[in-house]
């Protein structure tokens, strides 16, 4: 699957929540766009990631 423009291989099927935990993302600081759709935080545990998914993991940074 593709995350933030990079291709990665999903070793085994996992939920979005598990993926974010494994990769040390702080859930309170990020927003997820999966295949062009915003994913609300209460859905993280119910979504299973697929190899064809395109995901953006975004956060706030300094800006003017």
């Amino acid at each position, binding site marked *: 699957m593709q995350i*933030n423009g990079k291709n990665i291989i999903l070793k085994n099927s996992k939920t979005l929540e598990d993926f974010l935990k494994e*990769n040390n993302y702080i859930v309170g600081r990020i927003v997820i766009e999966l295949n062009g759709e915003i994913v609300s935080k209460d859905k993280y545990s119910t979504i299973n990631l697929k190899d064809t998914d395109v995901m953006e993991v975004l956060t706030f940074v300094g800006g003017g």
Partner: protein
Amino acid sequence: MDKLIIQGHEFNSRFILGSGKYSLELIKAAIESAGAEIVTLALRRANTKTEYNILDFIPKNVTLLPNTSGARTAEEAVRIARLSRELGCGDFVKIEVIKDTKFLLPDNYETIKATEILAKEGFVVMPYMYPDLNVARDLANAGAATIMPLAAPIGSNLGLLTKHFIKIIIDEIKLPVIVDAGIGSPAQACEIMQEGAAAVMINTAIATAKNINEMALAFKLAIEAGRKAYLAGLGRVLNFKAEASSPMIDFLEDK
């Protein structure tokens, strides 16, 4: 009390601080020195290697104003605004739609389109724009909460290059006019506040100053001074003549 009111939200400070170009540790102190109650942010890809997030350095009472920087079309600006709102930091959004990569000038047409869509979705929409009165009217009609005309190209510190056109917008548009981009010195911030700007937004002028905290404070004082001068009403100007400030009678001419 003289408050800045943006779509029903009240602020005591008229100083909007941009948070770009600082190291994270300096942001908190800059916000405090500025007395800023609104701080802008940008949305970017998250990096798991970074230990700290900018939100850890912004006091909780500060209103966050995410921008849509990076957007080249109205559609992209709308996408960024929706994603930013999902982060749970409120409904404010500063619309920035920029196709021109050399001078970073905003695309007014796309900005109007994005404003219309986001205002209908309940956002507090603060569009950054090239100062054109017709566009300001269109933005107001599209549901903008403020108008944010540029003083000079982003990050240039060139000052009030568009002053006359900003003044036209201030005079003609009932919404708060917040001057954004290009202001390089406290004197310039004071000058446009004197002319009736509702607030100014400053980032680069502080981030590139030798002493960030002192410059943030200098801008705070200048913005307050300019506002007070505006409310007091500037004295009149005489051209090609003079008028003595001291009485001209009762002394030497009597001899």
